[in-house]
């Protein structure tokens, strides 16, 4: 009996020999190979690509989209997605800063209010999708417009100066430290910690089994007593909160909160997730793949600039590389299904 399409969910339950052969065929493995090839190509094309400064640079940006991608992976595995993450990324810090600067709120309380706001947005997405039964594409697209519009309206379109006094929260979200010649931000710890949690939940926890089952066949999961709607609502909330967290991290790091921050992030995040091997149709999700996908998109964006692709042609390359990745996945899966 040949294990065909690999999923993270099934991987731990296999005997070692079989595990090895299906690992090589798994989508996250092919993504990893492509990532290594990409890194090698960029490193050869430009020596500065692997310089401590450039690596530090990539690592500074990586967690911000990567954190959102973790939530998006779980949501996609459950069969839904969220287009409002980029807008939430922009709105959360803007609201927090307005409360601090115009409302005179303490930063801690304002951050708490930002958290509540993200929970509310996620809950609205989740409730409309599950209880009214409108597709998440339409719901979160509308919410994207509402949230982005709100950010623009309350700031009148002007960026705000962010909180730049050193203190507990800035250190917590955007502090930095040096390891040798490398400079890392605390956000990297957030990303690593949240990644480990997400791997645990999706692979080993009861909840992960439910998430995959819901995305794979919702009515089957419901028939077994899995609270599908509740799980989806919580995943929408989680994704929104992670988007808000990423927005705060970014705003603290650059000491500015812009109402247009995060524009287009939703598509980039979804690209990271699917390039990593998570199925857009639900049921099959891989956090390790998403991490590889996040690294890959970061490396592409960074490497392309270093290699000297003209700025205006840059998105062409990003799009083509993503498409090539997806085609490769599809071909690998077809192959696997045939064997």
């Amino acid at each position, binding site marked *: 009996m040949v294990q065909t399409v690999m999923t993270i*969910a099934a991987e731990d*339950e296999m005997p070692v020999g079989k595990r090895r052969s299906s690992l090589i065929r798994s989508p996250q493995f092919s993504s990893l190979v492509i990532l290594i090839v990409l890194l090698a190509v960029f490193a050869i094309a430009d020596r500065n690509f692997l310089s401590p400064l450039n690596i530090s640079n990539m690592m500074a940006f990586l967690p911000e989209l990567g954190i959102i991608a973790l939530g998006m992976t779980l949501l996609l595995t459950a069969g839904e997605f969220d287009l409002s993450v980029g807008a939430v990324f922009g709105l959360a810090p803007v609201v927090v800063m307005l409360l601090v600067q115009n409302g005179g709120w303490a930063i801690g309380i304002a951050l708490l209010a930002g958290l509540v706001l993200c929970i509310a947005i996620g809950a609205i997405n989740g409730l409309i999708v599950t209880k009214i039964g409108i597709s998440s594409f339409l719901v979160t697209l509308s919410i994207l417009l509402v949230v982005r519009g709100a950010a623009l309206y309350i700031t009148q379109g002007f960026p705000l100066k962010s909180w730049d006094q050193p203190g507990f929260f800035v250190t917590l979200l955007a502090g930095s430290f040096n390891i040798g010649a490398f400079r890392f931000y605390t956000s990297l710890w957030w990303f690593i910690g949240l990644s480990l949690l997400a791997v645990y939940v999706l692979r080993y926890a009861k909840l992960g089994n439910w998430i995959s089952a819901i995305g794979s066949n919702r009515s089957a999961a419901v028939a077994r007593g899995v609270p599908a709607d509740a799980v989806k609502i919580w995943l929408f909330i989680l994704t929104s909160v992670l988007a808000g967290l990423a927005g705060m991290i970014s705003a603290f790091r650059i000491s500015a909160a812009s109402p247009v921050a995060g524009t287009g992030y939703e598509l980039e995040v979804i690209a990271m997730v699917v390039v990593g091997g998570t199925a857009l149709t639900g049921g099959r999700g891989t956090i390790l793949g998403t991490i590889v996908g996040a690294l890959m998109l970061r490396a592409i964006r960074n490497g392309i600039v270093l290699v000297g692709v003209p700025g205006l042609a840059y998105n062409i390359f990003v799009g083509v590389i993503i498409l090539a990745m997806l085609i490769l996945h599809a071909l690998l899966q077809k192959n696997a299904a045939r064997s």
Partner: protein
Amino acid sequence: MMQEVLRLQNLQKSFGSVCALKNASLTLKEGEVVALLGDNGAGKSTLIKAISGFFPIDRGDIYVRGEKVSIRSTREAMDLGIETIHQDTSLAPDLSIARNLFLGREPVNLKWLGVFAPLDLAKLRDAASALLKRVGISKKLDADALISTLSGGERQSIAISRAMQFAARVIILDEPTNNLGVEETHGVLRFVKEMREAGHSVLLITHNIHHVFEVADRIVVMRRGEIVAEQTVADTDLLTVESLITGADLSSLMKRAL
């Protein structure tokens, strides 16, 4: 006298203007196999979905062991001991056989972690293998194989072994022999008999009247959302049942049924 396990009284259910269930009443006793018959769209699946908590009923009462219950979710139905194998096979194709067998009732360590509790993977695999062996399909199937790699008949067998696993009071099978080969079909019928011998009650929906005569004790016929006839298998024959289902010669049949 055998004890009553499940009693439905005047169940009603409409989908918009479609009245899928009107005044359906039915009793199921311990160790009894009841066949629920009726043409396409008669309301059979709707009736069993109401019992298994898929959707709320508009009106009517459900009694389990003489006690009135309200079944608001599939979980509540399962907790009452009602296991259902639905017509559209209720398995998640992207999950392994083992994970499907225990979906919703996963063995976990550190139970206090709730939904975040880690699965007991060793127990999951062992129990799944043991179960597959019991159903007699362990030779062909590996507990770690994904459902998407199985044939329709194999999937049906998995769904049935899952109902066996949790050996419920009431087992509901909605057209379980659909798409099955000869051998698998006999497996299902054998399973129904085994369940009866073990004292479980079985509600069997099927379009195959021969199967009915092979395993059922009693038949209940539905037409347009209503239960139009109820007979013990010993007191009837194939032709009568067939005409009951199609509703040919309605007036004389109604008299006989009453």
